[in-house]
């Protein structure tokens, strides 16, 4: 039983000293030495963390940004050494903190394959044998004699990944590698994981993607501010994870666009000035403002439109987006609902709008996007992307986008 544990992390703490005045030159080091000015902030990136990973296990590490996940991974990889505590690792470990480590843009693709291989512990001879496989898998045989700097980033990632999956090791550390690459590449990654699961390779997997964590990981831990706040089965860990996220969001939810979200930042919210949307709320059937809903609960979105200039027959509506797939899953507006002549509004008047969200939405995170436009829908007076976020949880069948009980037919054909 004992030998089945391949990673044993025992009360590991990692502190970073963040000096107020970094001694980056000899002069300041000398001056500060005499001043005895050694003021610094102690940042506990990882604080008293313990866990064990068994052979062949897929182990997930989740947590918000800055919770210490990457530091922990680097400790496991031996890149950082712990301030306190012990890390015991049995077997060969290969870290993929990043794909294509050591890639040199001035060398050709071919030369980079050998260099990267050497960093993973393969000799030139061993790489010669694997070379054709790697190039075929990356689908880059035409480009191998070109310098890496002429590759697109996608091509670089493909090449790096092809090398990486050839590296046979007992333990793999994977840090959000899947965040890069297109859909086809991600599918390849997942196929590779499925293959890995059949072997007795141990995988430590750090990700934000609930879907893949849920699909592949058996056990895991949840980190928050450097400490483990939940451990055990992945399901248990993930539900604790959504809880802290919801808590966080309900604390700083504002009716305007959430500034913390980066995904949509590039797209500007449109506001031509004739009208402004305010007081956007997600509410339940009693009218109480909420952002966390139980599966099956009635959900409605309401907001107000303040008119600034005279407008005739504006269209008012709302779209709901599912975060993970980044797709609109529901949209309604006054025109769709047949209100063609919504009327004339002048400066100072206010419109109240409310729309019910269809039942059956499954567990997940959703965004609302209210909008008001001119009569033909060609000009947005105001549109707020990602105006509010709401969560649904508690479904007993959470593996699809919607979950409704439809009648099925089930017969044996004779």
């Amino acid at each position: 039983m004992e030998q089945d544990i391949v990673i044993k992390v025992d009360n590991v703490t990692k502190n970073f000293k963040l000096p107020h005045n970094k001694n980056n030159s000899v002069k300041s080091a000398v001056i500060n030495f005499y001043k005895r000015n050694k003021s610094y902030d102690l940042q506990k990136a990882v604080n008293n963390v313990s866990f064990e990973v068994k052979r062949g296990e897929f182990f997930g590490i989740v947590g918000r940004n800055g919770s210490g996940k990457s530091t922990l991974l680097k400790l496991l990889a031996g890149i950082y050494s712990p301030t306190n505590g012990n890390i015991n690792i049995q077997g060969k470990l290969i870290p993929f903190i990043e794909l294509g480590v050591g890639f040199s843009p001035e060398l050709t693709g071919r030369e980079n394959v050998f260099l990267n291989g050497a960093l993973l512990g393969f000799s030139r001879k061993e790489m010669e044998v694997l070379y054709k496989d790697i190039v075929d898998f990356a689908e880059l045989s035409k480009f191998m004699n070109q310098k890496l700097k002429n590759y697109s980033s996608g091509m670089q990632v493909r090449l790096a990944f092809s090398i990486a999956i050839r590296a046979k090791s007992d333990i793999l550390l994977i840090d959000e590698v899947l965040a890069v690459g297109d859909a086809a590449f991600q599918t390849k990654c997942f196929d590779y994981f499925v293959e890995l699961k059949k072997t007795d390779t141990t995988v430590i997997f750090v990700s934000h993607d609930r879907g893949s964590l849920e699909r592949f990981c058996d056990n895991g831990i949840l980190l928050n501010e450097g400490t483990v706040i939940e451990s055990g089965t992945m399901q248990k860990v993930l539900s604790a994870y959504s809880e802290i996220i919801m808590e966080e969001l309900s604390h700083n939810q504002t009716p305007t666009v959430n500034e913390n979200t980066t995904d949509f930042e590039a797209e500007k919210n449109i506001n031509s000035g004739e009208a402004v949307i305010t007081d956007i709320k997600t509410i339940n059937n009693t009218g109480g403002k909420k952002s966390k809903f139980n599966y099956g609960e009635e959900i409605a979105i309401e907001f107000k439109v303040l008119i600034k200039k005279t407008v005739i027959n504006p269209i008012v509506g709302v779209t709901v987006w599912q975060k993970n797939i980044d797709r609109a899953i529901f949209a309604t507006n006054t025109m769709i609902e047949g209100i063609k002549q919504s009327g004339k509004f002048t400066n100072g008047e206010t419109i109240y709008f409310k729309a019910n969200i269809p039942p059956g939405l499954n567990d997940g995170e959703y965004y609302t996007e209210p909008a008001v436009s001119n009569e033909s829908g060609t000009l947005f007076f105001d549109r707020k992307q990602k105006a509010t976020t709401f969560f649904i949880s508690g479904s007993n069948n959470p593996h699809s986008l919607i979950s409704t009980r439809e009648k099925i037919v089930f017969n044996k054909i004779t």
Partner: protein
Amino acid sequence: MFKRIFSKQNIILVKELVRTDFKLRYQGSVLGYTWSLLRPLLIFIILYIVFVKFLKVGAGIPHYPVYLLLGMVMWNFFLEMTMMSLGSIVGRGDLIRKIRIPRWIIVISSSLSAVINFLLNLVVIAIFMIANHVSISWSVLFLPLIFFEVYVFSLGISFFLSAAFVKFRDINYIWEVFLQAGFYITPILYPLSRISNHTYQKLMILNPMAQTMQDARYSIITHQTITSYALFNNGYYIYIPFLIVLITLLIGATYFKKSSKFFAEEI
């Protein structure tokens, strides 16, 4: 311990890093590797014109042009190796932050790049020795040992500088000044016999670079070279340069080992 240091993986890695360094060095230059040979050749021409024809500093020393070139090549090796190693850890910061490889491999591989260059320069020296009809004696056998001493000395300094540079980014300027000073207090351009004060002569030869340079000249070019053995009459003082080399390596390696744990977070 030796098994760990010379493990298959470490050797693979050093080979591959040296190969990369070498390929990248002359990237984009028309003559490419030829520069490794051309550079000492051009330097030689300059030295020859200035010191042999104009200043005549080496009058009385046989084969003085080659004598001069050997000193220059050895000094350049020391300079190149320490300067290249100094920035090696910071320059490979991307590797250090993302993968676990023994840190010293990076310093070793950059030092080996300098060694390769040095060996190419030695080819040029050999050509000049033949052209100058320098007669080879059995003492040429000491040459590898002498060069090894230079390598060990440079390595000790390299370990120290590369680790210190992670924390203190003005080390390279300081080291440049040191090198400049070293260039003049080492008998590279002038023969040691030119220093008339014997105490100064003795002090100067305690510098491992001066000691090795004189030894190398003695063993392959001309026995008319003042060596530490002659100066100190084989007294105990002759061991001082070796002791300096050893202590340098010890301090350098210890400091490197101690601080290498924190490279990833400090770069």
